[in-house]
């Protein structure tokens, strides 16, 4: 991928805090107009990477370019072209929502009247018009995130950084935020999104970079990543445990792969290459041999499984989602 077509480029970024590396040769290239998801557990280095690319943090080695400008040499140029919405809503909690947006508009050097008009448009667009004159500190979590995102959009950013934008939001607020991000991307903004939620990366990102220990350990579309982890599997549950051996023999003959059997839940599973063909063949053969099937699925590996395979450990996000 070349500099010209990439809105965000990181090459060999290194950053350590008191000897502990936070980024350890971090490489990334995000094509303009796409959404890239940085997926990884807490402490993987996602936030460090975003803070470096958003000019907030210096780095020890490597190169970084955002919207065509070198981050280290032209931070001012970069700042004029980016928006940043962080993990913690970066708004003034004493000022009202409207005052916040006017303040940030003025600091982006809009004339006073234009700043006021833009603030009103954004309040409308993000459903904050009714709460416009309340202190941002009194907003709910979802409202504050929306205000935070609105503050990043006063001038349309070329590149938008979203650092765990929906952590702690209820599903409705989360969907609303995703909707807003999608409409931005439709307008041509490049988005770099960090998340611990596999679902979020799956939903929003064109390409996903899996980050672990300060490095990108895998990169690709969600489907590519899943494919790299392994083939799809057919999973079926038979009604009578006594038929398990017969069923296993049939499945093994058709799929050609090793069949794993779980007697407890009367389940068989095996890898399949020709998904639909295998499914049809297996079902026909089982029927011919009088094996009663209770349930059958063709399953792609989940991103959780992908993460486990790529990093050797479970993601923090997985545990949270399971707990939730």
């Amino acid at each position: 991928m070349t500099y010209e077509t990439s809105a965000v480029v990181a090459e060999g970024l290194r950053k350590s805090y008191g000897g502990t590396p936070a980024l350890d040769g971090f490489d990334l290239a995000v094509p303009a107009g796409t959404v890239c998801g940085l997926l990884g557990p807490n402490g993987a280095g996602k936030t460090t990477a975003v803070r470096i690319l958003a000019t907030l943090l210096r780095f020890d080695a490597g190169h970084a370019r955002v919207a065509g400008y070198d981050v280290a040499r032209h931070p001012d140029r970069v700042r004029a072209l980016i928006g940043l919405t962080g993990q913690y809503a970066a708004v003034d909690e004493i000022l009202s929502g409207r005052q916040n947006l006017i303040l940030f508009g003025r600091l982006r050097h809009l004339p006073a009247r234009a700043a006021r008009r833009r603030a009103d448009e954004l309040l409308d667009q993000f459903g904050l018009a009714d709460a416009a004159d309340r202190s941002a500190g009194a907003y709910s979590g979802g409202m504050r995130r929306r205000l935070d995102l609105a503050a990043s959009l006063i001038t349309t950013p070329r590149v938008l950084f979203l650092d765990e934008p929906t952590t702690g939001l209820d599903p409705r607020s989360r969907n609303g935020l995703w909707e807003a991000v999608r409409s931005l991307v439709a307008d041509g903004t490049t988005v770099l999104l960090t998340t611990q939620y596999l679902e979020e990366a799956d939903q929003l990102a064109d390409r996903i970079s899996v980050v672990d220990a300060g490095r990108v350990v895998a990169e690709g579309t969600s489907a590519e990543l899943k494919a790299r982890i392994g083939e799809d599997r057919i999973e079926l549950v038979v009604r009578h445990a006594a038929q398990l051996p017969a069923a296993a023999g049939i499945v093994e003959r058709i799929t050609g792969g090793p069949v794993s059997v779980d007697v407890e839940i009367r389940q068989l599973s095996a890898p399949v290459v020709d998904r639909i063909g295998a499914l049809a063949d297996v079902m026909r053969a089982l029927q011919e041999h009088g094996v009663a099937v209770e349930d059958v699925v063709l399953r792609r590996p989940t991103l959780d499984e992908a993460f486990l395979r790529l990093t050797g450990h479970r993601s923090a996000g997985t545990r949270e989602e399971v707990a939730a």
Partner: protein
Amino acid sequence: MRTAVDSRRGAAEHTEVRSPAGPLVRLGWAVADGWVMAGRNMRHVVRSPHEIILYFSLPVMFVLVFGYVFGSGMAVPGNGNYREFLLPGVFVMTMLYGLGATASAVALDASRGVVDRFRSMPMARSALLTGRACADLARAVLELATLVVCGLLVGWRWRNGVGDALAAVGLILLLRLALTWVGILFGLLVPNPDTVAVIVFPLAFPLTALSNVFVAPDLLPRWLGAVAAWNPLSATVAAARELFGNPGIGGESWAAQHPLPLALGWPLLIIVLVAPLAVRRYQRLSR
């Protein structure tokens, strides 16, 4: 939340970005951004009215406590009234304690996410700090006005005409501006509003004790007296006493003989040294 079409229409008009060009343009933006930030800080005060009470209570308390508790029994060399002697010192002392409010306000900003937004925007790096200095100077004007009114009520007067009195006020505000920058630096070095407030007091208290606010430095042991005579607070207090025509202390040292140049020089020196340090520190926050 509305659809993509809406957001596109609104945003497109503002896509053009003005980036800093020459040094003069840049200075212009720095002033404009600082002004916008000062407006933000003043809006904070309007939105939290309990703070306004604080603005007035400390000055009133200082005048009453020091004017009546200390001012009732003591005599000043040269037939002066102790209360009249004391009040310029109380004015300056109030300015010094304002440092705590400055430091906690900056620490509060620095500890919050909003500072990330400021630092990721194409605004002047200095604006958060110059805006704070501006707003706190405005606050100091209010405090000083309160002090003057209270002073007049307890019998303090200026005796050399309005011009000199305004010059004294100017020097006191200049010192406050310098102290504001010290407060800003503290707030950035200790970005925790509670901690920094606790740190400021033990630093500020000896500074007033080791000055000419309450006693003549010549009465102190020799080396302490020298410290007190050269204390920047002493310079401003002595200059204010002279300009207000209030009884002063005099003294043998060069510092005691030349309060006016010192009352100008000290604050300017402090600003020149501390302001760039503070801006540098701000740029390196969390780096």
